[in-house]
């Protein structure tokens, strides 16, 4: 198990620099599972049952954690998949529709069914916003029990049917417990692998900074679908185990309260953590057993817990355990980029000849934001883009990076037309960017934020990452060391393991530049990188950008600081009201009459 986690960040900087596995991350998890393994030896069957239940719930919640905690999709009806898995397994083992299937075969088939249904449940997430998605998962939870009721010949209707009987050696309480515990351990390991892969970082980027995620080439639809497949399969297998534990299933076993338990386990655990939701699941499974007199109020207590978490401690258990980030950071830090390191960061094999805009037009609600703009950004050159507020600078960046498709005109890269409006493909075509307001994942470490930028350069597939195969480990090593280089280059290496939302505004701008460099882009688009920087920092930024362009990377720089523009740009375009007012070298622009009157103000 590799590397850093936000829950452990900060105290383990040297370790992550050395690239070894982090005991701060895996230690508590291993300890929990070791303690869990002792349960059958020190207690009775009752506690073994409760522990088995917690393990089975974790198989579901652990995977659901990727959907809710990482991807931020508020799926509140996941009991639907538990139901599906429980029924599929039980029906197959009972032989109601086919010759009886062995238990493990049935579990595997349930996993496949869960994967398919997981996509169906998740599909609305691609089109619907949060509340809509929440309600739609709730609807799925309702109809699946209705179907179980109605389809009497297969499911036994209201009478239900027996759960699968486990073969030896899993037929005893302890035997079955160790099976479930192994499954729970496997889920923990797999989700930890995903969390520490480009897929996991992609999910949190989709959650907290979806625009930046697109610009770094994260394909949201494909990524979410992959996660829904994985979660659906895990949840259905958990359902099969659940049916075996219950020994008999009827539709009324699959209550909405159970769904609430899953959902709240993740949230009290904390988003983007694995230890937190694990503890959350254990606590919520145990709580009713200790509070038997409170049975009637248990759902009420869950609700109170949820409200408290949301209002008082949105970070959940994970944030409470995150001692590393309590350390006070020194105030008024200054950033000193090391331009010399840029050579290590950006390869020099750039062959792209340039970005060319011709006659681009785009209007919002009838107002022409850009109106026939021609623009060329050449490799190895810095192109400044200036103009008053509302003159269309950022809109041009957004057209190039594919967030908007122009109404007329063309955009080409190296002579080939770029597909308009396809923002997710830009990173792989060699175009990276930063944003006017930094788009970052506040809850992730600075290092992870920067590694997000290298998403497109990952080689391993989802399955390879899931099982931590060599290509995944290779990816992680490379990305980590490159991200550390990028952070050193922008002068943030000492803050690598700090939560990004603790950084100063100026530091976030440099972090975004480091993130953009991770894609080894042929062109970087920068949206007001100097805003909020001190005079010294602006100077250093200028040198840094020059160093980038010397590596053959083209830079398109939108900026208000005229000094910086005239100091470092090779070429300057001046916009006004969506049209090009003037284009030329800094020297030409400086003396351009209209520019002086319209913009430079004398």
């Amino acid at each position, binding site marked *: 198990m590799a590397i850093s986690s936000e829950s452990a960040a900060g105290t383990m900087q040297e370790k992550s620099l050395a690239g070894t596995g982090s005991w701060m991350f895996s230690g508590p998890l291993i300890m929990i599972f070791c303690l869990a393994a002792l349960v059958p030896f020190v207690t009775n069957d009752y506690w073994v049952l409760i522990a088995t239940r917690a393990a089975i719930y974790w198989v579901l919640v652990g995977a659901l954690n990727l959907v809710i905690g990482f991807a931020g999709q*508020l799926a509140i009806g996941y009991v639907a998949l538990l139901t599906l898995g429980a029924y599929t397994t039980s029906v197959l083992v009972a032989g109601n529709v086919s010759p009886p299937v062995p238990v493990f075969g049935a579990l595997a088939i349930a996993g496949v069914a869960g994967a398919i249904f997981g996509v169906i449940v998740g599909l*609305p997430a691609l089109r619907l916003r*949060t509340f*809509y998605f929440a*309600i739609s998962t709730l609807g799925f939870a309702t*109809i699946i029990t209705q179907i179980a009721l109605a389809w009497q010949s297969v499911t036994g209707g209201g009478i239900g049917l027996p759960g699968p009987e486990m073969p030896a050696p899993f037929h005893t309480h302890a035997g079955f417990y160790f099976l479930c515990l192994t499954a729970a351990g496997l889920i923990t390991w797999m989700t930890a692998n995903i969390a520490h892969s480009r897929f996991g970082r992609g999910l949190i980027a989709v959650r907290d900074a979806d625009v930046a995620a697109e610009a770094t080439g994260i394909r949201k639809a494909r990524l979410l679908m992959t996660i829904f497949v994985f979660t659906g399969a895990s949840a259905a297998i958990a359902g099969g185990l659940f049916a075996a534990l219950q020994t008999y299933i009827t539709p009324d076993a699959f209550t909405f309260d159970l769904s609430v338990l899953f959902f709240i386990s993740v949230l009290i655990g904390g988003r983007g953590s694995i230890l937190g939701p694990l503890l959350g699941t254990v606590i919520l499974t145990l709580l009713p057993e200790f509070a038997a007199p409170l049975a009637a109020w248990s759902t009420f207590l869950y609700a109170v817990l949820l409200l408290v978490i949301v209002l008082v401690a949105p970070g959940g258990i994970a944030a409470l355990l995150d001692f590393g980030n309590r350390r006070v950071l020194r105030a008024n830090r200054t950033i000193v980029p090391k331009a010399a390191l840029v050579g290590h960061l950006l390869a020099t094999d750039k062959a792209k000849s340039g970005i060319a805009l011709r006659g681009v037009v785009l209007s919002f609600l009838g107002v022409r934001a850009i109106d026939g703009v021609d623009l060329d950004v050449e490799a190895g050159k810095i192109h400044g883009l200036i103009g008053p507020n509302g003159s269309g600078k*950022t809109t041009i960046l957004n057209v190039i990076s594919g967030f908007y498709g122009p109404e007329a005109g063309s955009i080409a890269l190296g002579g080939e037309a770029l597909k308009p409006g396809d923002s997710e493909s830009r990173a792989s075509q060699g175009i990276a960017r930063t944003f006017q307001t930094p788009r970052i994942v506040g809850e992730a470490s600075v290092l992870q934020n920067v590694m997000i930028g290298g998403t497109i350069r990952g080689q391993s597939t989802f399955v390879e990452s899931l099982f931590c195969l060599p290509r995944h480990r290779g990816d992680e090593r490379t990305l980590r060391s490159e991200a550390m280089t990028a952070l050193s280059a922008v002068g943030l290496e000492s803050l690598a393991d700090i939560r990004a939302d603790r950084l100063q505004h100026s530091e976030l701008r440099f972090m975004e530049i480091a993130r953009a460099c991770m894609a080894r882009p042929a062109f970087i688009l920068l949206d007001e990188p100097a805003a909020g920087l001190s005079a010294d920092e602006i100077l250093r930024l200028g040198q840094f950008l020059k160093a980038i362009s010397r590596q053959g990377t083209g830079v398109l720089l939108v900026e208000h600081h005229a000094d910086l523009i005239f100091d470092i740009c090779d070429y300057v375009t001046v916009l006004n009201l969506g049209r090009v007012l003037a284009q030329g070298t800094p020297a030409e622009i400086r003396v351009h009459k209209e520019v002086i009157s319209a913009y430079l103000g004398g």
Partner: protein
Amino acid sequence: MLASIIASGLAVGAVYALIGVTYNTMFSASRVMSFTAGQLGMLGGVFGSLFVLRLGLPLVVGLVLMLVCCAIVGLITEFIAVRPVLKSLDQHLYVLSTLALALMIQQVVAVEWSTEPQAFPRVFGTGAGGILDEKFWLPVLTCAVTICALELLYRRTLTGLSFLAIAEDNFAARALGLPERNLRMASYALAGMIGGLAGFSGGQLLLAFVANGPLLNFYGFVPVALGGLGNNRGAIVGGFALGLFQQAANFLVGGIFSSVAVFMLFIAVLLAAPRGLFGGHLARRV
């Protein structure tokens, strides 16, 4: 038979529509969808039954007390579940905070009131039985009166116009010096009363029953999804359409499959038109 489908379809449709309006009223004031909307409908029935039947108060007093209580629940929603998370709307914490509050309301009613449906008083006592029974026309009438009153409020009074201004552009309205917070609280109190009225007028149809909460949450949200967020006219049309569709489905395919049918329709419409049949605009992201 057709008459009875139409009568009950319009009646439950009116209740759904009013819950839809409750959702919209909260949304317009705060950009928040609240899971408490359906619970307010449930509370309207429970408070009505509690005040009039259990405590034996006169009907009018019961109605007024119910409105006051539901308005208070609306204010509590605003204060506990909405205001603290308004700062970070983009994190969608309101989904969780309002869900938590809705679950709390439901559990308290289940434990302190009853988990079985309880009787609801008759309001006028006319047309007992038959399709002219007040249980069928009362929700429709209440829905019509509420809509007219809302239109008058929004179009003809200064307060109403400020509501609209807030709904249109929160920041601009605040910049104009409108008391945004007070207006938001007033909106939530108003939403509480509309939700309560929905439950009260549909009380004889739905009874004072705790399970109505989640039911109305879902069926009241469908008209909003169909009609477009914040669009009251859309919600009314959507509510009646849903009521008729649901009762027809109950009749044609039977109890078990009618909820499946409604859900399928809901998902299909949403996937085809995520912003509702009556449109809505997409915000600029970048």
